């Protein structure tokens, strides 16, 4: 589904990703862990097409297409979804208008007719159940005045609306209390199907108790330095990253 080869990327001239290699197959859940500043969020931003980052080398293909050539909107329409670590507040744009525009652009891309207003509202009602969001959501401005937990639930709600093939959850657990974490993780699990894949970026094992990964990677200084089974996450939780640094000869 996703194949990244020797990916290098800069922000403001500073190289953050220094040769990422990663292959994700249909149905797999990959966890990416790593110390602060290792490039985890940069990787997710580059995959989603954030124009602030410049890819200097390497390739990434998604469902057979050259991902790096696609605009952010086309990446989304092709089925890539990024759950933002810091969802953006957009004053004056209501959730309902935002989601209607997004869903209908996805449908247009697939050459499907736009949803009728009633079908759309029905879909919205149904999907917000996944993350237990309340009814006032539709008319509120995007993320404006949302609590940290609501923002993350809202990300997963959008994921439920767009039904992506590949979801990248960038520290979706940060800023969540235990209950919210459970709701968010349950939402992600309910949306899981044999054809969809997930990349979970996190610092903590806690989230991985709920969203069980098949493979765990350690990202350090812009490269994937270790790949293992879910046990690797448990080991990191217990021992930290120093032993990995030692293995790398630091």
């Amino acid at each position, binding site marked *: 589904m996703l194949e990244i080869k020797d990916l290098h990327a800069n922000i403001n001239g500073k190289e953050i990703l220094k040769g990422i290699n990663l292959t994700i197959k249909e149905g797999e859940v990959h966890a990416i862990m790593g110390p602060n500043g290792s490039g985890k969020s940069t990787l997710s931003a580059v995959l989603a097409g954030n124009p602030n980052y410049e890819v200097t080398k390497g390739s990434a293909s998604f469902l057979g297409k050259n991902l790096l050539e696609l605009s952010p909107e086309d990446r*989304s329409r092709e089925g890539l979804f990024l759950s933002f670590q810091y969802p953006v507040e957009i004053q004056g744009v209501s959730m309902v208008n935002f989601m209607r525009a997004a869903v209908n652009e996805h449908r247009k891309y697939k050459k499907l007719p736009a949803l009728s207003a009633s079908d759309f509202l029905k879909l919205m009602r149904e999907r917000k159940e996944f993350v237990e969001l309340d009814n006032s959501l539709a008319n509120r401005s995007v993320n404006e005045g949302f609590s940290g937990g609501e923002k993350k639930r809202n990300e997963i709600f959008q994921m439920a609306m*767009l039904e992506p093939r590949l979801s990248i959850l960038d520290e979706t657990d940060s800023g969540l209390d235990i209950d919210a974490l459970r709701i968010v993780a349950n939402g992600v699990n309910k949306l899981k199907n044999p054809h969809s894949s997930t990349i979970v970026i996190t610092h903590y094992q806690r989230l991985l108790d709920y969203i069980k990964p098949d493979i765990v990677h350690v990202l350090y200084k812009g490269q994937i330095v270790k790949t293992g089974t879910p046990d690797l996450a448990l080991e990191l939780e217990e021992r930290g990253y120093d032993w990995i640094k030692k293995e790398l000869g630091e």
Partner: protein
Amino acid sequence: MEEQSYIDLYKTHAETIKSKSSDILNAFRDEAFADFEKNGLPSPTSERYRYSDLKKSYGINYGLNINRLPIQINPSDIFRCDVPGIKSHLFYVVNDSFFLDKNAENLPKGVIICGLNEAAEKYPELVRKYYAKQAQKHNDPNVSFNMTFAQDGFFMYVPKNTEIAEPIQLINIMSGNADIMANSHNLIILEENAKAKLLVCDHSLKDFNFLSNRITEVFVGENATYEHYKLESTGEKHTNICNLLIEQQKSSNVLTNIITLHNGLTRNNIDICLMGEYAETKLCGMAIGNGCQKIDNATNIDHAVPNCTSNELFKYILDEKSKGTFFGRVLVRKDAQKTASFQTNKNMCLSADATMYTKPQLEIYADDVKCSHGATTGQLDENALFYLRSRGISEREAQLLLLQAFTADITENITVGALKDRVKMLVESRLRNEQPKCTACAICK
């Protein structure tokens, strides 16, 4: 025409001008002319008109209809307003001549709406009591010029304890087969406890050079409620000068919303004087510019007495080589304690060539007040754009969503539901770079 040509024009034709107008209007004419002769046309060298070269606009050789020749036009043939669901009483001022609507008879008892000249003839006491009461205090070259030449306009009177439920709609149309100038003077009076809404739509019908210089004096009585909407969609060769002067008595409530959708060169001079305690005023507006359009709003809110509230919000979206100016003065006089006054100006420059001049000016002489002001000029939020795009929304649509959101707190201030929906739609089509069209309006077709 040059300044001197206008001076000569008046000197030569003063008698004609006066003979075709009412004595009440004429009573101020010579004095206004003396001011005009002394101060001249609005000059870009003056601080007040620094960013809008009106002198250049006045410089065109316009025709003035000082002989009051009837205009061979039936405005309702060319203009049918189609705001779905809006029931309004329609009136027209074509150039500077007033036209009556056939629905005028359905107005509540005691309400008078007619041409200013007709009102001066039929209700001289009423007109004399108010006419020029605010304008004559205004030391402004456009006001002096208007009062030198204006011969007619729109008159509206809402007596005590009377409410006009449906909005009154005044359509200002500039039309003709030559370059034309129009000076009109509108007088709006709301007595104690009266309630009314006025929607003023400015249009230009043909692609000649037009200059309209209009004064609207509004007197809002004690406890009265008034809403004034100005919706402008004029052509690029139209210079539109609007002098809106509002005086508010005790506990009155006024909402003013000035929306410039499309224009050539527009100057709005808006002066609101809070003369009675506990008066409240909300003044907002927005402008969308592209091409070489120029939108200049100069506002002045005068807190003359204690315990009044003013809220001001202006927003501009400027693209290409358009130019916006916002000059917002708030004056809190020495005795105006417990004043609450808030002013905000937010602007979006979408191109490197668009220019915005903003000058908030608070003058506070009282010491127990709550006042704030803020002005920002910037571009669309890149993080928000990326967020929207990352959900599959194209860059263009994402920009539109953000721009519509930017204008939302102005359009939300429209209390007539049908009008609000229509304005939102017009804003959207304008942002999509389509000419704003009111579907059934022959002017827009």
